């Protein structure tokens, strides 16, 4: 299966290890991500001023460029990009005159017909590949490892673009079960991590990260799995020193481990909280493995 791929800036700058792991895992599933030949920043946040067209131009341009490739569907790893692109697309499809206005503001160079859509990689894995196929590819089940799935906001809110039930999401839960892990859950799984407050209100982020990791620990989790590069940054950097920090995995990395891929392919080195100890403890990577 070939799918058009929109990486987004964060994946190329600060979350390269997520992309490495995703590409390795998808190769193992015979899926080829075809990166768009030219792409721009998604706009990062969906603008709520819906009459300021230029704020919606970046995401709409990506859909137009996708259609220029003759495709109508693209996937992304980044939760922020997914959310911004999906919200802009919903906003545009609601009222076709918005698309016409953007096309004409572009000086006629854009010609979007409103038929494209964005899929988060988790959607692609759940709905197109299927958890049964993923389970069938597992070579080294994550037996004995207890994992707390963390969703954050961008996969689930607002509900118009949610890729799972906004109140009781299951996608990471089901994926972890398919990989053979034990899942610990709690109400803070869908709480915001503090997001961009990290730039000016570090304490707010620290408090939220501590509350969520405390809950995970109390419920027996040895690691946390998530999808969003921004959540990853906050959780990986702001756990404080009251407890031994929980290792923070991208779901792609755990898939790679369970698929028995080479640990070097999975970008396990680029984390502040070391990932190897918990994997070695459960004998999920070979003794003496080097990851960098």
């Amino acid at each position, binding site marked *: 299966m070939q799918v058009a791929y929109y990486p987004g*800036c964060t994946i*190329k*700058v*600060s979350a390269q290890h997520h992309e490495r792991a995703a590409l390795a895992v998808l190769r193992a599933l015979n899926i080829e991500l075809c990166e768009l030949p*030219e*792409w*721009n*920043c998604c*706009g990062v946040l969906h603008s709520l001023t819906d009459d300021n067209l*230029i*704020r919606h*131009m*970046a995401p709409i*341009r990506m859909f137009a460029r996708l259609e220029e490739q003759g495709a109508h569907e693209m996937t992304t790893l980044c939760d922020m990009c997914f959310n911004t692109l999906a919200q802009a697309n919903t906003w545009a499809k609601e009222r076709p005159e918005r698309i016409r206005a953007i096309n004409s*503001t*572009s*000086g006629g*160079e854009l010609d979007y017909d409103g038929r494209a859509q964005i899929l988060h990689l988790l959607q692609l894995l759940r709905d197109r590949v299927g958890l049964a196929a993923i389970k069938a590819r597992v070579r080294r089940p994550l037996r004995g490892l207890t994992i707390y799935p963390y969703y954050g906001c961008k996969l689930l809110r607002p509900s118009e673009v949610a890729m799972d039930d906004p109140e009781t999401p299951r996608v990471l839960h089901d994926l972890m079960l398919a990989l053979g892990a034990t899942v610990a859950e709690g109400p803070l799984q869908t709480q915001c991590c503090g997001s961009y407050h990290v730039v000016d209100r570090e304490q707010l982020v620290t408090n939220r990260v501590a509350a969520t990791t405390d809950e995970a620990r109390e419920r027996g989790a040895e690691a946390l799995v998530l999808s969003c590069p921004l959540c990853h940054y906050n959780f990986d950097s702001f756990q404080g020193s009251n407890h031994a920090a929980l290792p923070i995995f991208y779901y792609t990395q755990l898939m790679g481990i369970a698929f028995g891929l080479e640990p070097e392919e999975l970008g396990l080195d680029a984390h502040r909280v070391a990932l190897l100890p918990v994997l070695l403890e459960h004998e999920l990577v070979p003794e003496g493995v080097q990851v960098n």
Partner: protein
Amino acid sequence: MSEQTGMITMQLMGKNYQVPTGLTIMAAIEYAGYKLVRGAGCRGGFCGACPTLYRRSDNHRIFTALACQTLVEDGMCLVQMPFVPVVSRRYDLHQIAAKPNTLLQHFPEIAGCVACNTCTRACPQGLQVMDYVQASLRGDIERAAMLSFDCIACGICSSRCPADIKHYAVGLLARRLYGKYVTPDSPQLAARVAELQTGNLIADLNALMALSQEELRARYEQRTFETSEENKEPFSAIQHYNSPMDPVDYKDEIEV
């Protein structure tokens, strides 16, 4: 009427002038009696000193051009921009590294790009300006360098940008970083420089001088390109990018 007489009307800084058809904007300005002491340079489309904004009488958009490269049209309303001011952060190329965030750190305003593509539409060189700003934003220094390679720093992009990005300064830093830190090392060049430093090249030169034009051309056409260590394909990064440059016919070049 204008066509019959071979004269057209243009408006320069708010005043109408009759000028002959077929002149460049720059020649038309001079025909109208102005002496250009700024806003003119090479007159060949390379120096970027003659950015022009204009409107056409039948269109609501602002158009852009280089005055030395564009023919004047009937009904043009023109204004010259001798240069576009930018304030660039100073850097010492030896002290900075080619990291994914380097361009963003020096030009944080690139994060304000809304992908409106106005810069691309304004570029008289036909470059994909927005795409190289976006490549810079995500730290793809090589792509930014390649896509901005033919920039002549006229600054029209920066004058039109709603996010006040200094595109040409961003592209210049990308090309400097690419040249200094990213381009593969060239062992053949180093070896040749070492040969040159021995200084005794008279025999080589004499041998070249003795060749006929046909022999020289044959050598030129059969020249080999350097291959990099890890990749045995000849290295030519420019092949991978859509340069708006016309393909150069080297045979014609030698004919001259």
